[in-house]
């Protein structure tokens, strides 16, 4: 075969002719939705936390090393042999028909009944969140979300201009009474929320699960007060203990007030980027059009990978393997927190999912703590990242799924040192306070 191109290194890199003085050219054109998505201080802290020598409890990374290599090779080989042309081709915007059928089985395992024509495959659950907001939210529209909310949803809220009203969580999940109170307050201003975004199972970052009673009440509120719910359920299967509770989608029983979002990121692997949304047909049509604009269709190679995997293997075995790993890691983190964190600190004890949410005494700002922690080469997500209104300053999200137990213990020990330093300092700075 004739070589048409030389090695890439022989091509000189393009010499950019755009200098700093030209920045204004772009600045004046940026859409308001492109402005200030994440604070630069936060970005800088995150940039350091991504260095390989830093113990990162900041990520939300599932363990991809647990995925069996021979299974990957087998599925890849099948695709190459039997589905090459179609896997390399565009696919339908709503996703491969057979995969949508298979997704029903996965949902059925959690007790959710749905119909394939209500399912659309998305590029990760993340795209489904983005499409929900794109479909419903005009700039300035109120949207309810837990406080804290999923940090990854924050850029979506910001980009679509949602006016997010945070509703607190407690150990039983979203405070539904406060959802109603928030709706009352909005109603008094002549406004109403376009939707409520919630993660009922093993909340990210909150680490808590919505109780059955709250779920029933929330669905009742949705029906009575016409509140549209986006139920994000990436972690439902990542359960270490306890019984699964019915989803909001199931409790809604076809009334059409719940849009359901889930993903293969946690039950298979996030690099596949395949998720899905289940929505009533009129909503799905609009989301489908949104998706056409965003990416035409989700990767057909990835969809085929998931499909051929599901045909040949029981995904529940892989999930069971992952859950075993994560449970030990969660235990390691809770043990380490018990040993290392001060008595005034509180944290959640998740029965599944990937995260612990810890709250420190109110004299510690976790962004400052992050600076101290990075001196010790350990990173976490400061709580502020989970709010759009500057709250969360004394809290932090700690991930246990992406790091082995010994590293978790070491990371939390280093964090504990940093926290103690603040505590001592606080005492020294407030001699009268006696704290």
């Amino acid at each position, binding site marked *: 075969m004739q070589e048409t191109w030389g090695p890439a290194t022989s091509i000189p890199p393009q010499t950019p002719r755009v200098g700093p*003085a030209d920045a204004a050219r772009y600045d004046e054109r940026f859409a308001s939705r492109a402005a200030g998505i994440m604070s630069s201080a936060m970005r800088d802290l995150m940039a350091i936390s991504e260095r390989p020598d830093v113990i990162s409890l900041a990520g939300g990374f599932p363990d991809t090393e647990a995925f069996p290599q021979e299974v990957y090779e087998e599925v890849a080989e099948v695709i190459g042999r039997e589905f090459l042309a179609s896997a390399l081709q565009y696919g339908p915007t709503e996703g491969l028909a057979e995969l949508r059928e298979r997704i029903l089985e996965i949902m059925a395992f959690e007790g959710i009944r749905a119909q394939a024509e209500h399912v659309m495959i998305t590029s990760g659950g993340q795209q489904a969140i983005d499409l929900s907001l794109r479909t419903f939210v005009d700039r300035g529209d109120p949207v309810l979300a837990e406080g804290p909310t999923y940090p990854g949803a924050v850029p979506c809220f910001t980009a679509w201009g949602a006016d997010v009203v945070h509703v607190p969580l407690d150990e039983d999940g979203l405070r539904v009474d406060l959802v109603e109170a928030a709706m009352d307050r909005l109603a008094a201003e002549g406004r109403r929320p376009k939707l409520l975004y919630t993660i009922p199972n093993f909340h990210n970052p909150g680490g808590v699960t919505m109780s059955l009673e709250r779920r029933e009440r929330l669905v009742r509120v949705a029906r009575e007060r016409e509140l549209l719910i986006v139920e994000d359920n990436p972690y439902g299967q990542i359960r270490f203990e306890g019984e699964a509770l019915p989803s909001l989608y199931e409790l809604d029983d076809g009334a059409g007030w719940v849009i359901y979002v889930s993903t293969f990121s946690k039950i298979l692997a996030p690099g596949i980027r395949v998720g899905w949304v289940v929505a009533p047909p009129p909503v799905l049509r609009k989301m489908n059009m949104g998706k056409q604009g965003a990416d035409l269709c989700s990767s057909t190679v990835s969809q085929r990978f998931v499909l051929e995997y599901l045909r040949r293997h029981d995904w529940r075995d892989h999930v069971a393997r992952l859950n075993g790993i994560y449970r030990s890691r969660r235990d390691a983190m809770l043990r380490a927190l018990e040993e290392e964190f001060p008595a005034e600190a509180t944290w959640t004890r998740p029965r599944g999912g990937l995260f612990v949410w810890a709250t420190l005494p109110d004299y510690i700002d976790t962004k400052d703590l992050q600076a101290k922690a990075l001196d010790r080469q350990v990173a976490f997500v400061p709580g502020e990242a989970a709010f759009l209104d500057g709250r969360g300053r004394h809290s932090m999200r700690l991930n246990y799924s992406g790091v082995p137990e010994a590293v978790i213990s070491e990371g939390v020990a280093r964090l504990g040192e940093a926290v103690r330093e603040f505590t001592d300092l606080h005492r020294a700075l407030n001699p009268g306070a006696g704290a």
Partner: protein
Amino acid sequence: MSRIAVLKGGHSLEREVSLRSGANVEAALRRLGHEIIPVDVDQRMVRVLAAERPDLAFIALHGRGGEDGTVQELLEILEIPYTGSGVLASEWAMDKVVAKAHFAAAGVPTPPAYAFSQEAFRQLGAADALPEIERRLGLPVVVKPAKQGSALGIGLAREASAVAGALMTALAYDDRVLIERLVAGRELAVSVVGDDEPWALPVVEAIPIDRPFYDFEARYTPGLTELRAPADLPDHVAQEAARLSIAAFRALGCRGVARVDLILDPDEALWCLEVNTIPGMTDTSLLPRAAAAAGMGFDDLVTRMIGLAALGA
């Protein structure tokens, strides 16, 4: 044409800013026909530089490690000429407490301040001195980490009850902090260029938009600050700003390019806050804007900076 190592990134909290400065500098050096050796500094830096033997090093690092004399010292040992100030000037400028002492000695006005180490609070009960400090300085005060290149960790305390919290924040970024009288006014920056006979670029004014003062967010986010270059100032004020900035540059023994941050108070008095020996070269940085106001393009600026590269303190 030279082989130039561009040192960027690193471990400091200003890593990302440094990467952006470095990318701009690399683009300019390429346009100028130089050969680039990009170095994201880590444990291998000395080995890489010893092996590559560049003609000179362009330091685009910000904050600790890069701006405080550490990297400069290593380049001295490797005998690789580098842009910007030497070891001692870098170290002095990085430490706001030391820098202020030099300003005062050279007759450059700087807001009154007191500096404390973490140990002073932990072991010597310095907290009990806070009321007296507040009385002497008057409120509000600005609390700053002694060594932190950008506005990270800087806090404003409008009342006495907020001072302890601001100290907690500042002490997260450095073991030594200073409590400084807030001098409110217009925020000016003068970039000084040269070695023995330094000269000043036009004054740039940073006008924060809806912010209490020129903080970290504003410093690096387009739109939060409006930069005016040259600043709209009476001639005598602009000349005085240039004179003081050159005096501050000399007081620390700077070389190459350094940016002097000043406040112009409502009585038209100028106060020198600090000198940055490695000014940002990002798209929103003050130095490139100052150069542009003097009719000097980014590439000309970079050419001048490498022309001033040298060895020796």
